[in-house]
């Protein structure tokens, strides 16, 4: 069996098995890997120093040279990057002191916004518009300028490090999905988890090449956008009305 043909399947099943190990350990283990994911990947932010030495300040000007609608389109396209916070609705009952956690949840969101802002500004300073439009993985290509005396091609190490950015997301999503199935259908969480993993591995086997990944990203982004901005608020309104009606009856 030639590895390169099936490499994405090998990689996805490897990640999913790893995901199973973490999720089957319970929610505590999932929070553990999420925490470690932050700790391990945080130093990679320092690598932005390398591209910043070749930055062009004039790329940022003139400020606000686009119509307002362009900003909205951009914000919609960013939906994929912000997805994931809605899993809070699943693990909220697991928090020990939810009142105290509110502050930290907001700080957490602010922190990811700041990281995105820093990444965006670094990227705009380093590439110009036309060059960026031709780049698929902008941050990964940023790392191609990283120059360490002991490491010639840093980006390969960076990709390995990126596993720790991806793994917590996989674990948290797997946990939330299996938990949701348990609550909805009263399935055993372990069995539903195995079903989800098999389904995910099966789905991954269909992904081939860049256009497919792009398509997947767009679909996830659009679905996520409507879930976050329409479905969840709608649920909130419906729930509010139901509670009002029930109160009146009683």
């Amino acid at each position, binding site marked *: 069996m030639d590895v390169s043909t099936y490499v994405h399947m*090998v990689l996805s099943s490897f990640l999913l098995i790893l995901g199973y190990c973490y999720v089957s350990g319970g929610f505590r283990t999932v929070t553990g890997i999420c925490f470690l994911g932050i700790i391990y990947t945080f130093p990679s932010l320092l690598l932005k120093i390398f591209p910043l030495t070749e930055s062009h300040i004039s790329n940022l000007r003139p400020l606000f*040279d686009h119509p307002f609608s362009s900003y909205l389109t951009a914000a919609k396209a960013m939906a994929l990057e912000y997805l994931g916070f809605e899993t809070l609705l699943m693990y909220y009952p697991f928090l020990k002191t939810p009142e105290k956690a509110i502050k930290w949840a907001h700080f957490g969101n602010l922190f990811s916004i700041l990281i995105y802002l820093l990444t965006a500004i670094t990227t705009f300073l380093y590439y110009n*518009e036309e060059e960026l439009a031709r780049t698929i993985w902008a941050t990964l290509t940023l790392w191609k300028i990283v120059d360490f005396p002991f490491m*010639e*091609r840093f980006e390969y190490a960076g990709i390995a490090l990126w596993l720790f950015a991806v793994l917590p997301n996989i674990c948290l999503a797997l946990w939330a999905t299996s938990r949701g199935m348990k609550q909805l259908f009263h399935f055993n969480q372990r069995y539903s988890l195995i079903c989800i993993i098999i389904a995910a591995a099966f789905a991954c086997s269909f992904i081939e090449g860049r256009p497919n990944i792009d398509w997947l990203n767009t679909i996830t982004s659009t679905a996520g956008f409507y879930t976050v901005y329409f479905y969840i608020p709608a649920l909130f309104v419906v729930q509010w009305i139901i509670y009002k009606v029930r109160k009146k009856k009683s």
Partner: protein
Amino acid sequence: MRNKWITFLAFLVCLSGCTAEPKIIEDLQLVQAIGYDDAGKHRVKATVASTITPKNQEQAMPKNVTFTAESFTSQNVLHVLQSESPRPLAVGRVGVALFSEKLAKRGILQFIDGLQRNADIGRDIPLAVVKGEAKEMLELQTPVNQIPAKYILDLIEQNQKENIPNSDLHSFLYHLYGKGLDPFMPLLELKDGLIKIKGIALFSNGKYVDDINYEEAFIFKLLFENFKKGSFEARIGKNKYINIENISSKVNYHVINGNTNPKVTITVKLMGLINESEGISLNVKKKESVEERTRKLINGKAKKLLRRFQHERIDPLGIADQARSQTRNFNFAAWEKRYPTIPIDFKLDINLVEAGIVEEKK
């Protein structure tokens, strides 16, 4: 417990499939430099320079070896080269890419594209145009007993700190794709068994169209970026020359009416140090006159350079990009049409602060 063992076994099965072909660094032929030459009829001749360490010798110096092959595309040529090398060629450590003058005039977009698509090649590698053949340069026995690839890399890096503008693969791509910018790279020459920087090769759409010499490169650098080194010779009278070392130079572009009636003002603030001025007393009054003469000299050269770029319709300094950043809804097409006739003013604010460790007798 049983579950754990099952997972463990599953890992073993999966991981055994993950053994991609291992690469052992001692067994690779690490390519240090690639040179591209024109081979006629749309063909390219590539030369890769690598090193081998002679075995069974104590304190053996790495020896330069080159492989040469011809093909139509820059990436296929790497595979053709493999047919000459008993060890696998690895391009992950390529330090510099050279293009022969003839090939650069034909256009190098295809080879640049090959370099940027190859994930193994970094974006911080310098590129250079070579007068004559790149192959010849990579086969050179350098006087300092260093392999040519390393020699060229050091040469370019050192000079980019001083008299020639910074450029590497990334900045070439930046200038190539960016609107209102044209790329450039250092121009090398092989002379009397020495590799030497001749100046800068200027490109228009991936074709080498013009070059400027080493002295003009300093003026170019003044106009292009802020830097802290380099030196300049000024004639301040009949058979009287002084040398001015740059301590700090800052450039600023100011564009007004970018879309309607553009006017560009380039201001350079130069802090210099006079390090050779035999026979010229440098009192306060004299210092001012020296500054004035230097200003005039640099002014003239810079304006000549700018007019030349306008005449040739190339913009390696990225004046249009500066105009874009200072104009709302900038119109590139209108600018390009107007470019040769746009008035570009150059102002030099020179301040000579020191005159070395000796003093004139008062």
